[in-house]
């Protein structure tokens, strides 16, 4: 990665981390409701892959841990935070919530809350790209536990069969909700499960963004050049529980501390400091600047935004009626 890109991505990852930590606080304050799945610890996965791809151009789809993926594709953090607050200015106009962030304009095709649900949707997006003849690719980010759903196997089979331009990124954070991977899954290393479908696959350290970037470059090039799907497994760790009601009784604090020694943000920061590209003081100033941005722009926007109108409760259930009348009434031809 180029130095300028590394510095830019470091700031982005700090934004992502601070955004998520601020969500935690707002949830405790009951300003965010429902379920909230946070991303700290895994930032190098999304950032490393998307640095190798084309954010806003390639199509991205994921599960319910989706805030950072949306923002990385180009969604405004203000609109994402407003969505978590359930406001009309939210990315889904307050109808979606934390698990359903969408930004179609930036080709972020959404967060979905059925584990494994996005696999076939991603393949379908790739099918549409194939039919239209574009050079975009579909990227599906999901966790390791999604691979125990039937959709994983069914989709891999079809993606390989039809050579669809789809990159499956498995963020292996070692836990499916509160069950350790070795207690739920016969094969811990997920890339090994893909060989039965004849799909190219690799495993990579998911904490070191430069390693993720290099692995993702190979993966993205493979898919974009028309060679069919690719499966990239990134070994990572989520610091927080699965969602907010999770006290993490299924793992030790020692294990958590061990992973925090290889924090994706600090790894990159320390490398930049060692390369004399920045100082610790620069980093501290960066954190301060990001905190100010999150508090005084992002959270402020969400707090001050209006609620959706109850009169528009049914607005998005079906397509705008006026535009569909020929088919509803049969008065077309």
């Amino acid at each position, binding site marked *: 990665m180029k130095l300028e890109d590394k510095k830019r991505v470091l700031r982005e990852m700090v934004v992502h981390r601070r955004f998520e930590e601020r969500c935690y606080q707002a949830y405790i304050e009951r300003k965010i409701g429902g379920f909230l799945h946070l991303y700290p610890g895994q930032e190098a996965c999304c950032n490393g892959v998307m640095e190798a791809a084309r954010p806003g151009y390639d199509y991205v789809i994921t599960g319910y841990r989706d805030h950072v993926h949306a923002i990385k594709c180009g969604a405004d953090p203000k609109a994402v935070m407003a969505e978590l607050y359930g406001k009309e200015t939210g990315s889904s106009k307050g109808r979606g919530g934390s698990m359903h962030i969408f930004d179609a304009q930036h080709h972020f095709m959404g967060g979905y809350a059925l584990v494994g649900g996005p696999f076939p949707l991603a393949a379908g997006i790739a099918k549409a790209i194939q039919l239209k003849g574009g050079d975009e690719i579909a990227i599906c980010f999901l966790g390791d536990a999604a691979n125990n759903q039937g959709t994983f196997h069914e989709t891999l089979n079809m993606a390989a069969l039809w050579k669809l331009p789809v990159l499956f990124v498995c963020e292996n954070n070692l836990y499916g909700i509160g069950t350790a991977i070795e207690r739920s899954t016969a094969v811990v290393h997920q890339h090994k499960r893909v060989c039965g479908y004849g799909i190219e696959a690799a495993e990579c350290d998911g904490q070191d963004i430069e390693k993720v970037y290099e692995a993702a470059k190979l993966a993205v090039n493979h898919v974009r050049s028309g060679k069919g799907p690719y499966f990239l497994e990134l070994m990572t760790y989520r610091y927080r529980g699965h969602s907010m009601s999770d006290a993490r009784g299924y793992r030790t604090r020692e294990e958590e501390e061990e992973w925090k020694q290889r924090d994706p943000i600090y790894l990159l920061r320390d490398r930049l400091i060692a390369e004399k590209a920045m100082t610790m003081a620069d980093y501290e100033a960066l954190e301060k600047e990001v905190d100010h941005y999150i508090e005084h722009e992002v959270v402020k926007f969400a707090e001050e935004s209006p609620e959706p109108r109850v009169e528009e409760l049914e607005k998005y259930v079906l397509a705008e009626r006026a535009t569909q009348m*020929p088919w*509803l009434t049969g008065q077309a031809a």
Partner: protein
Amino acid sequence: MAEMMYWEAIRRAHDEEMARDPLVICMGEDIGVAGGTYKATKGLFEKYGPLRVMDTPISENSYTGLGIGASFLGVRPIIEIMSVNFAWLAMDQMFNSAAKVRYMSGGQLTAPVVFRSPGGTAHQLGAQHSARMEKVFMGIAGLRVVTPSNPRQAYGLLKSAVRCDDPVFINEHELMYNMKGPVPDAEYFHPLEGSEITRSGTDVTLLGYNISVHWNLKAAEILDKQYGISAEVVDLYSLAPLDRAGIRQSVAKTHRAVVVGEDEAPVSVASEVIAILNEECFFDLDAAPVRINSANVPQPYNHTLEMATIPNHESVVRAVLKLFGKA
């Protein structure tokens, strides 16, 4: 107006829509090289090729999801699920993805996808190949449900469903693919909403859809000829939304209603229609509305038991006579 079989009408709608728009595709098990279990896609593979006429693996949930994902980018897939019994496996994608994506994205994404699938009791297909599931689909917000009772509707409803931006489930019937009927020679779009009066009458309204329209027509004939009772037959080809106004208008005229369906009574299409009768027609009714449904059992294999499970025109005649105190 040419006579055409139900399957031929569906095939014609596919062909016309695929010829018009390169983003209309069809997919499903055995629909390509084999031409479709009920011939609804016969010859399309040769004409449009494997990229647009996709023989899928037997993976209902995921090929359905794949079609839905493609529809997010403006592709218009017509997804055949060989038997509605297999649609249970695809309901996750149909309900959680197609039906909800527009709402939960605040109107950003839409899934203009068509699902076609036959259900119903055919010839001794047993418990796992005889389901009637329209009752399940019609209760899902964000999904339109239509069910053609004749070749004209089969053709026109598919045409409209392909063009409509909402996901549409088309409930067909395994026994009806070889039914013949007139279909307009010119391009025809059947309305996705509303109902049709198939036979006018003044004494009782027989509400049905798909195959039960035919039981009702036969019953109306008998009631007229043998008992002097004038029955109006209403075809509820749209199950979601149901045509409240159409139901109200007919019952306001006849003051009596019998609702007939091949599904089982608990939580049936008839349950919902009778709720509408209560809400819309309570003071118009001269008698409590009646529903006629299948027995609430997994479909038996034995032919005698199978026939005892489902209603027919005779059950309708009996119910009407009882309503008039003649039985």
